C-alpha cells in the first residue's frame, strides 16, 4: 500500500486530533516532517476538511447534523443554553464544544449528532437534557446509554441485493471457472449502470480501465456517501460489506489491479473496526492478499482511507485527490480516472452499491439482474427514504417504481414535496408523483426525502443552498462566489427582505453557476432554488416585499456597534 494507512495524512491528522483535540501550527510542522510532505500541504489539508480544527475543541466535541432529515438545530440551541455555550464555540473550561456537520447519514434515526465522532441519534428535548447532565458530570461516553448509539439497518423492502447475503468468494470462483472476459461480458449484458446517480455503464468503465496503458491499476470504492438524505451505503457497509469487497476483488481480477481502496466518509468512521475485521477474515480465507483462491498471480488487497467531512470528495476525481493526501479539489477532466486516476494510473471508481451489484450479477447471471427494472434502467435501486413518513429506512425497488408507490409504502401522508437524489437532485411536487425512479426519468443516488404540508419548503431550499455554500471547494469562481451569493440571496428572501429584483438576481446567478462551474457540485448546487422557483413560485412570492429595492444589509443593525461604543440610543442613532 502506498502510503501505509497509519501514515496517510488524513489519518495522521485524525490521530493527532484525537489526542490533542486540535491541530496546532506546531503539529502541522511535525506531521509534515514525519510524513515528508510540504508544510503548506499539511496546513491546506487541515483547513480544507471540516472535521479538522485549528483551535482546541472540548473533551466532548458535538457536531449537530444540519440535514433536513437527521438534523434539528433547535435542539442544538437547547443544548447550548443548558451548557452555557454558543454554537460554534468551545466552552471556557474546555469541557465541551458544539458545532455543526452536514448530513451525517442518520436520516432514518431522527435528529442526530456526532459526539467525538460517534453518531448519537433519536434526539429530543428529553435526551438533550440527559446529554447535558452526562457532559457536566464528565461521564465517559462508554458509560452513556448504549441504545443511544445503536444503529439499525431499517430495511423495509429487500429485493435482489438485500434479500440474501452473497457467499464469500462465490463471484471470484465464477470468474476463475469462466474467465475474466466472460465475467465482464456478463456485467455488460446486465446493463449495470453506476449507482452513485450518474449512471455510467459499469462494464464500459471497467473495459476502459482494463485497456488503458499503465503498469498498475486501482479499484476504488466510493463510500463517501455525502448527499444529504442518503444512508444506504451505511447499511451496505454494515451488513453487506463482504459483497462490496467481493465486487472490488472481482473488478480487480477483470482489470488486473493489485490494490483497492475504500474511501470511507469520516461520518462513518465508527464502521472502520468492523470493516477491518471483515477484510482480515477475507485475508485469512484466501480471498484477499497474495494468490487469492490459490491462483498464482491473483494478488489483491484493500485498504481503507477515512475522509474528514468534505462532501466534494464524493466527486470521483476529488476523492482521488483526497486519497493522494491533498485537498479534495476536483480535477480537470479529461483525462478521466479510467486512464489517469489514483497516482496517475488507470483507476475504476465505483459506488458501494454498484460493486455489490456487480458481484451479484457474476454469481447469479445477467438475467437475474436484467429481469428487474426498466428498459433503460435495469435492476434494482436501494433507496434511503427519510423525512415525513411513518417508516423511514431502506427500500430496495426495481427501477420504474413511481414516487406515489414509494410514498404509500413508507407511510407518507399530506406530502407537499419530495427531494429525489438529495439537494443536488430534483425537488418535485404532487403533480410529478406519478413519475418513476429511473435514469431516464428521476435519477437518484439513493436519497429520497419527504416533506409533508407542515414543512416550510422555502426553509428547506434555504437549508440546501447553505449546504452547497458550505461544501463548495472554492476551486472555480462561479461555484466559490456563486454558491455564497445564492446563500445570501436566500437569507434575504427567507428573512422577509427580498423583492422581485432579488428573485431575478437569484435566477440569473443560479443559471450562471449551474452552467459555468467546474464540476458537478456547482452544476447542481442551484437545483433547489431553480426547482423551487419552477414548481413552487408562490412560496417565494408570498415572502416578498412589494417595493423596488430593499437594502442588502440591515441598516439599523449596522449602527448597533456604534450605538454601543457611544452609549447612544436617541432617534438619530437609528435608521
Amino acid at each position: 500500500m502506498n502510503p501505509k494507512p497509519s501514515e496517510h495524512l488524513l489519518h495522521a491528522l485524525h490521530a493527532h486530533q484525537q489526542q490533542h483535540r486540535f491541530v496546532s501550527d506546531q503539529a502541522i510542522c511535525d506531521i509534515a516532517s514525519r510524513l515528508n510532505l510540504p508544510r503548506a500541504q499539511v496546513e491546506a489539508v487541515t483547513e480544507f476538511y471540516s472535521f479538522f480544527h485549528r483551535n482546541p475543541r472540548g473533551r466532548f466535541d458535538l457536531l449537530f447534523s444540519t440535514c433536513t432529515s437527521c438534523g434539528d438545530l433547535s435542539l442544538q440551541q437547547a443544548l447550548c443554553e443548558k451548557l452555557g455555550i454558543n454554537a460554534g464555540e468551545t466552552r471556557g473550561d474546555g469541557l465541551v464544544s458544539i458545532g455543526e456537520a452536514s448530513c451525517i447519514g442518520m436520516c432514518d434515526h431522527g435528529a442526530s449528532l456526532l459526539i467525538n465522532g460517534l453518531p448519537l441519534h433519536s434526539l429530543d428535548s428529553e435526551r438533550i437534557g440527559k446529554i447535558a447532565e452526562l457532559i457536566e458530570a464528565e461521564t465517559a461516553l462508554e458509560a452513556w446509554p448504549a441504545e443511544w448509539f445503536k444503529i439499525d439497518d431499517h430495511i423495509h423492502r429487500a429485493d435482489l441485493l438485500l434479500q440474501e447475503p452473497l457467499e464469500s468468494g462465490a463471484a471470484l470462483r465464477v470468474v476463475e471457472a469462466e474467465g475474466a472476459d466472460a465475467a465482464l461480458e456478463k456485467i455488460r449484458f446486465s446493463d449495470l449502470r453506476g449507482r452513485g446517480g450518474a449512471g455510467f455503464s459499469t462494464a464500459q468503465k471497467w473495459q476502459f480501465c482494463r485497456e488503458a496503458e499503465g503498469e498498475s491499476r486501482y479499484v476504488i470504492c466510493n463510500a463517501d456517501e455525502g448527499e444529504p438524505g442518503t444512508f444506504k451505503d451505511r447499511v451496505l457497509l454494515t451488513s453487506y460489506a463482504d459483497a462490496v469487497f467481493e465486487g472490488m476483488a472481482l473488478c480487480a481480477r477483470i482489470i488486473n489491479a493489485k490494490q483497492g481502496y475504500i474511501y470511507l466518509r469520516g461520518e462513518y468512521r465508527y464502521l472502520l473496526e468492523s470493516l477491518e475485521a471483515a477484510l482480515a477474515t477475507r485475508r485469512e480465507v484466501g480471498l484477499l492478499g497474495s494468490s487469492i483462491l490459490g491462483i498464482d498471480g491473483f494478488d489483491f488487497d484493500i485498504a481503507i482511507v477515512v475522509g474528514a467531512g468534505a462532501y466534494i470528495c464524493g466527486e470521483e476525481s476529488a476523492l482521488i485527490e483526497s486519497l493522494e493526501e491533498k485537498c479534495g479539489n476536483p480535477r480537470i477532466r479529461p483525462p478521466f480516472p479510467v486512464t489517469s486516476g489514483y497516482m496517475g494510473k488507470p483507476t475504476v471508481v465505483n459506488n458501494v452499491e454498484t460493486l455489490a451489484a456487480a458481484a451479484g450479477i457474476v454469481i447469479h447471471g445477467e438475467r437475474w439482474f436484467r429481469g428487474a427494472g426498466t428498459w433503460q434502467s435495469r435492476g434494482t435501486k436501494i433507496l434511503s427514504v427519510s423525512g415525513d413518513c411513518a417508516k423511514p429506512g431502506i427500500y430496495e425497488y426495481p427501477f420504474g417504481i413511481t414516487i406515489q408507490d414509494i410514498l404509500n409504502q413508507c407511510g407518507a401522508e399530506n406530502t407537499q414535496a419530495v427531494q429525489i437524489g438529495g439537494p443536488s437532485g430534483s425537488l418535485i411536487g404532487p403533480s410529478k408523483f406519478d413519475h418513476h425512479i429511473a435514469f431516464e426519468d428521476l435519477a437518484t443516488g439513493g436519497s429520497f426525502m419527504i416533506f409533508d404540508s407542515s414543512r416550510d419548503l422555502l426553509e428547506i431550499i434555504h437549508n440546501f443552498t447553505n449546504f452547497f455554500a458550505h461544501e463548495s471547494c472554492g476551486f472555480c469562481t462561479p461555484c466559490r462566489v456563486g454558491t455564497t451569493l445564492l446563500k445570501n440571496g436566500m437569507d434575504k428572501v427567507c428573512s422577509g427582505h427580498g423583492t422581485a429584483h432579488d428573485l431575478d438576481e437569484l435566477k440569473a446567478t443560479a443559471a450562471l453557476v449551474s452552467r459555468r462551474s467546474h464540476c458537478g457540485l456547482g452544476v447542481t448546487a442551484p437545483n433547489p432554488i431553480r426547482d423551487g422557483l419552477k414548481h413552487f413560485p408562490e412560496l417565494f412570492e408570498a415572502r416578498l416585499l412589494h417595493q423596488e429595492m430593499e437594502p442588502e444589509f440591515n441598516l439599523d443593525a449596522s449602527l448597533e456597534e456604534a450605538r454601543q461604543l457611544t452609549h447612544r440610543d436617541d432617534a438619530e442613532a437609528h435608521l
Partner: protein
Amino acid sequence: MTPVKKREAYTVSKVRVATTSLAGCFGCHMSFLDMDERIVGLLEHVEFSRSPINDIKHCEPCDIGLIEGALCNADNVHVLKEFRENCKIVIAVGACAINGGVPAMRNHFTLQECLEEAFLDEIGVDNPHIPNDVEIPLLLSKVHPIHEVVKVDYYLPGCPPSADAFLKILTDLLEGKEPSLPKEMLHYD
C-alpha cells in the same frame, strides 16, 4: 430607462441635476469642474439643485442625481435616500460610490478599533473619549457602496472619472441616449 429630455425640449425647461459627496474626497466634484469652460455650454441645458456648487441643503425633485462617495454613516444614508426619492436617475460616481473605494479600507478593522485608535489611543489625544454628541452621525459598522442601499441607474467609474467622462454621460442623457463610456474613458483608478 426613459430618456430624460428630448433635444427639442431643451429650450423649454432645463434638466435639473443634483450632486453630493457622501464618504468621499470631493475629488469627483473637482474632476467635474475640470470640464472648465465646457460647463458654460452644459449650463445652457442644465440647472443645479442641491450641490456643493450652490450650497442648496436639500435635494428637490430632479432629473439626475450624481452621487460621489461611499456610505459610512447614518447621515450618508439619509442623504442617499433623499436623492433616490427625488431624482429620476441616480448615477453612482467614482470608486467610493461604486465599491466603497478608499473609505472601505476601514473595513479591515472593527469600528471599535477605528474609534479607539482615533479618539483614545492616538498620541497627543487630549481628553480621550469616543464622541457621543447627538449631532454627530453614527458610523455604520462597515462602509458600503451605494447600490447596496438604493437602486442605482448608471455607474461612472474612476478615481475620479475624468471631466470628459462626466460630460459624455451627461450629454448622452441630455440627448435621450443610453449613456455609454468609450473604452479609453473607462478606468477604475
